[in-house]
């Protein structure tokens, strides 16, 4: 099987998964908006939690996978691993956009401000900007070897920030709520709300997989075209 054929197969599989995940997202919207009760203290704005938390989970998952793939790339020097790391980084930036827009929309009615420069928000914004820089860097570097090595270093640095971001709510005084699911004790959320949150987490994880496969296939298709051009000239 040629590189182009395998890329086409991955793109098709990724498309199917993405369509299924988007249908799942529509179902999550219906469940969250129609069938999940309104929280008494925060009101309807609390429901923003069902998209904000899964988007944050997918963004941090994508960035962690970028870091792991970056380590693998520096070890094995396989360009397909570099392409996969770049694919995961771009998907992570997309999910970070959801996280960084829905967060302030929740913050305004609950905190009374769109943004505050506390440890959790500032470190998350820094991570987002780091990965925007990662993508810009990849766009300007022509040599694949240099591009792969430099972006792998940024990818690993970004991954190292992920546990720090998770722990900021324990390490610093911050307005951001502490985790209610990813914590040592049992989740502190009523059952019906927990089911909605877990469904949304599943759907966003599936979206990550579908997006990642499509973006990786796009990288492979570009690679195949560049190889064909190099052979032709």
């Amino acid at each position, binding site marked *: 099987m040629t590189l*182009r054929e395998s890329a*086409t197969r991955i*793109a098709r599989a990724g*498309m199917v998964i*993405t369509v299924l995940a*988007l249908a799942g*997202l529509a179902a999550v*919207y219906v469940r*969250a*908006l129609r069938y999940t009760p*309104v*929280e*008494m*203290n*925060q*009101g*309807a*704005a609390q*429901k*923003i939690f069902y*998209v*904000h938390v899964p*988007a944050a989970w997918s963004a941090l998952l994508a960035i962690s996978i970028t870091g792991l793939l970056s380590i693998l790339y520096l070890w094995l020097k396989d360009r397909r691993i570099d392409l996969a790391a770049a694919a995961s980084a771009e*998907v992570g930036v*997309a999910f970070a*956009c*959801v996280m960084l*827009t*829905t967060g302030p*929309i*929740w913050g*305004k*009615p609950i905190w009374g401000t769109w943004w505050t420069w506390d440890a959790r928000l500032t470190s998350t914004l820094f991570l987002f900007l780091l990965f925007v820089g990662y993508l810009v860097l990849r766009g300007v570097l022509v040599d694949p070897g240099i591009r792969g090595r430099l972006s792998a270093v940024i990818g690993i640095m970004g991954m190292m920030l992920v546990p720090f971001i998770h722990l900021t709510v324990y390490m610093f005084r911050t307005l951001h709520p502490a985790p209610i699911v990813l914590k040592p004790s049992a989740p502190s959320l009523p059952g019906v709300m927990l089911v909605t949150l877990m469904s949304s987490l599943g759907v966003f994880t599936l*979206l990550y997989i579908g*997006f990642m496969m*499509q*973006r990786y*296939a*796009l990288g492979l*298709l*570009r690679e*195949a*075209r560049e190889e*064909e051009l190099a052979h032709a000239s």
Partner: protein
Amino acid sequence: MPPDNGAFMVAAYIVAAVIVVGYAISLALRIREERRRSGG
């Protein structure tokens, strides 16, 4: 009575959907364009 802030919830759900669906469309279009450029 819970506070009346439903408009923020609606805004957040719309923004999230626009970003996610927009990115899905962007990926599909870029893959189609890449396949067209390479004649596949």
